[in-house]
């Protein structure tokens, strides 16, 4: 895929970071659970590679905060860190992991990215953003317990999106 195309796909993913939370905000209890802003960033990392994943992880939440006020500025810093790590790690793992079966590559890359993102964000939260009153318990509950449904939904949605995009010939097949 040419760099021009990767650049525009990243731009579209950044736009979706702003659009998806709004679109699903209207649907009762759908938006909050499945963390819509994470999907375009993870997808962008998987498809375009880590530099573009990083760009989406930074620009997505930033634009969304500016344009729709979601996430509010107070939560923006930790969100930028978490999503950037998602984008980078998803891109790196997608490049490294070649099991021969596309679905396995996707699962390993995604799970790796989701773990890494939460780990880094948790550490930074503890150290910088909410120094002192941040215990491991809060980190586990904050990032895993409540987000578990979101993680499971992402593990179902993202591979489905990748395969649909391949069928529609909008991205190259992983193995032909």
């Amino acid at each position: 895929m040419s760099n021009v195309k990767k650049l525009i796909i990243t731009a579209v993913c950044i736009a979706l970071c702003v659009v998806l939370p709004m679109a699903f905000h209207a649907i009762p209890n759908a938006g909050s659970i499945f963390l819509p802003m994470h999907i375009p960033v993870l997808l962008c990392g998987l498809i375009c590679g880590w530099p573009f994943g990083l760009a989406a992880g930074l620009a997505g939440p930033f634009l969304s905060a500016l344009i729709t006020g979601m996430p509010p500025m107070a939560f923006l810093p930790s969100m930028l860190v978490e999503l950037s790590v998602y984008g980078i790690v998803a891109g790196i793992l997608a490049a490294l992991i070649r099991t021969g079966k596309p679905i396995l590559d996707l699962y390993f890359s995604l799970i790796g990215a989701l773990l890494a993102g939460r780990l880094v964000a948790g550490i930074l939260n503890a150290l910088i953003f909410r120094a002192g009153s941040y215990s491991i318990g809060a980190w586990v509950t904050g990032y895993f317990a409540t987000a578990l449904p979101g993680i499971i939904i992402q593990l179902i949605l993202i591979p489905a999106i990748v395969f649909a995009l391949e069928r529609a010939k909008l991205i190259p097949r992983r193995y032909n």
Partner: protein
Amino acid sequence: MMHSAILSGHYLPNDTPIHRLNPRAKIISFFTLLAVVIITRSTVGYTALGLLLLSLAHLSKTGPRIVFSGIRRVGLFLLLIFLMNALFFNGDRPLWEYAFFHISVGGIAQGANVALKVIFLMALSSILMTTTTPMEITDTFAWLLSPLQRLRIPVHDFALMISIAIQFIPVLAEESETIIKAQTARAAKLDSPKLREKANALLPLVLPIFISAFRRADELALAMEARGFRGGKFRTRKSSPGFTRLDFAALTISIAFCAAAVILHR
């Protein structure tokens, strides 16, 4: 609902002093005032800031309704922050205690403090977004980050990426709304409790949105290449005009506010 969410940050073409400000001066002032919002804790500080924001809203003809309309959208969230602080933060002069709930004047003040900060941050960003075109914002960030270009970080491509993203937002927003309406008209149900079913219920909404968005990216790539885009090349940016008296006035006001805030809350 969707349209109002977009509009709290949408650029509204107008000819006001704020619109005429050089984007670089405007964004530097924006960041200075951002610092002021974060530093301010006292009621005097917040009232001064509130007056400044209201006059800016008036001066930029955006009007308070637009500037604060974004806040209506996160009303629930603000309430949550306020309650979290008011109920759990054990500040001075406790009023009432029960198990681990303890309401105190300090707690309520802390809750109000965080909530007000969020409101003012959103109002400030709304004023910036309605008076500055997304391209001006990206150009200014590209200018601020241009030293990184020497570290081979493609700052201009990043700025172009944001500009394309911003212009795609209204198109993709409207399209997602249509896709969601169309699929619910095909009886797509989203209220099933089981996780697996909920994920499957999201597929008919999420898949078409991504497919259509990627198809648009394909078409735009062709249009850009047809107009000579080569990617990566350092594109000559339009020259940015120098600072006028208006720009210097804006800068001095914001810096003065910042200095006052620092002194007041040391």
